[in-house]
């Protein structure tokens, strides 16, 4: 994925979501509820696995709840937190 290394976590997350078939308006300034984009369990699994593989993180059980996706901003912070733990 081009230029991924210089993107912020949120921008990179949006890119990963896009490659999993979830297209969101990255220019929007309002927070986004991702739950509306998850159409079925296949979409959910495929998306989470892509994020874990791309960021080389593992989500703990308490994050793997449907409501964790209600805020893209909060979810980005969770990913940031896991990245910091790895470092």
């Amino acid at each position, binding site marked *: 994925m081009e230029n991924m290394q210089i993107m912020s976590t949120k921008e990179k997350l949006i890119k990963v979501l*896009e*490659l*999993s*078939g979830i*297209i969101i308006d990255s220019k929007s300034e309002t927070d986004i509820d991702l739950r509306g984009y998850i159409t079925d369990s*296949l*979409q959910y*699994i*495929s*998306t*989470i*696995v892509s994020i*874990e*593989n791309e960021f080389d993180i*593992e*989500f*703990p*059980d308490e994050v*793997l709840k449907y409501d964790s996706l209600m805020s893209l901003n909060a979810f980005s912070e969770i990913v940031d937190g896991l990245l910091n733990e790895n470092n």
Partner: protein
Amino acid sequence: MMLKPSIYNYQTEGKNGGLILFNVLQGTKSLISISQENRSYVQNLLKSNEIENNCEKIELLNKKGFLVPIEQDEKVKLKSIYLDTVSRNDLILILLPTEKCNFRCKYCYESFSKGKMKAEVQDGIIEFIRKNIHKYNSLYISWFGGEPLIAYDVVERLSKEIQVICKSNRKKYIASMTTNGYLLTAEMVKRLYKMGVTHFQVTIDGLKETHDNQRVLLNGGETFETIINNLCNVKNNASSRMLRFVIRTNVTKKIAENIEQYIDYFHEKFSDDPRFSFAIQPAMDWGGDTINDFRENLINEIEMFNVFEKFYESDKKFRFAVKEYLEPGSGVCYAGKQNSFAIDANGNIHKCTCYFDDMDMNMVGRIKHDGVIDFDEYKNSLWICDNNYCKENCVFEPNCFRDNCPANRIMDVNKRNKVIGCASHGKNNLDKVLKLLENSVDGIELVF
């Protein structure tokens, strides 16, 4: 509002004299249990012709789908479920990277005639997906065999290419694998997870004595300890919470006789990890010649019932891989779906993985190296779930759509074998499954 009982209600006796209720049209979200003191009240309600929605208990039964508006024709709801199940725009490919196996299980139906998937077949699969993925919402790959991990290089090559194709086309992609577990180390699981494989099914036939009698290496060697060590290492070292492992056990007489030891052993090993669940079923005659020397070990229905009873009575709770088979449409075999295909190591395209060599109608096409398919649309259409095959007005219709095994329908097996009644394992085992779930880790909610 006036209500009536759903025509898809199913009930069975629960623990302590209570009742387990399940609605086949609603699936697992309907599962509830009723206390003994409310059992007669609910049973009488479910026998009534008209019910006024005038209390909390009735409202709950309405919300769960056990009671429906009196004017409603529930069969209308089946249309969309049927279309979504059978014609869903998701491509399902069962890929056999090899038909060779490092095991020789005593009941296996496979002939092991074909070796590793040839490079031109792999090229054909990649090109087929590249040229056609735009027509589908998603791609689901199920790795099968033989033993897929003895052709790991094929799995790796195809997975990596498929992942790139799906990403560049913005398509959902996920994969699963059926493996004997002998090569399924923690490192292997981590590599496969990177390639999108999240779900694994591993067969372990009881404890060491029975497993090493039934599931041996090609040279007759033992396999139990290696598989158990692998899975324990996976538990401790492959930590992604999205991974799922189903331990399947094909129960034979000896396993049934020692089922309490089985319960103790596997509960101690795996109950602390929610990613592990169990599929307990009888070993059967799945075809082929090998079973003829093993037939005396197969168990009958009463013996299998006793096995389920032991799980039901045990204070050791398991997670069972059964809930997904209770959802509407889940009883329709993959072979009965329009966009589901099995591709063997020679590039032949089949519908069913059980009849590669001895059923002409099963081979519906062949994949060429450039990804173009010689496809027999007529044969493919024969396999599509026929929502008119077996008994009308069956309570289980929303699950299997009256055609749970298209292979049997096409070969007219039931008529030839004079099978009377339903051949659906799902329906015939529904009672046992609901009781197992009641005694499982998650249990069934007691509502009143």
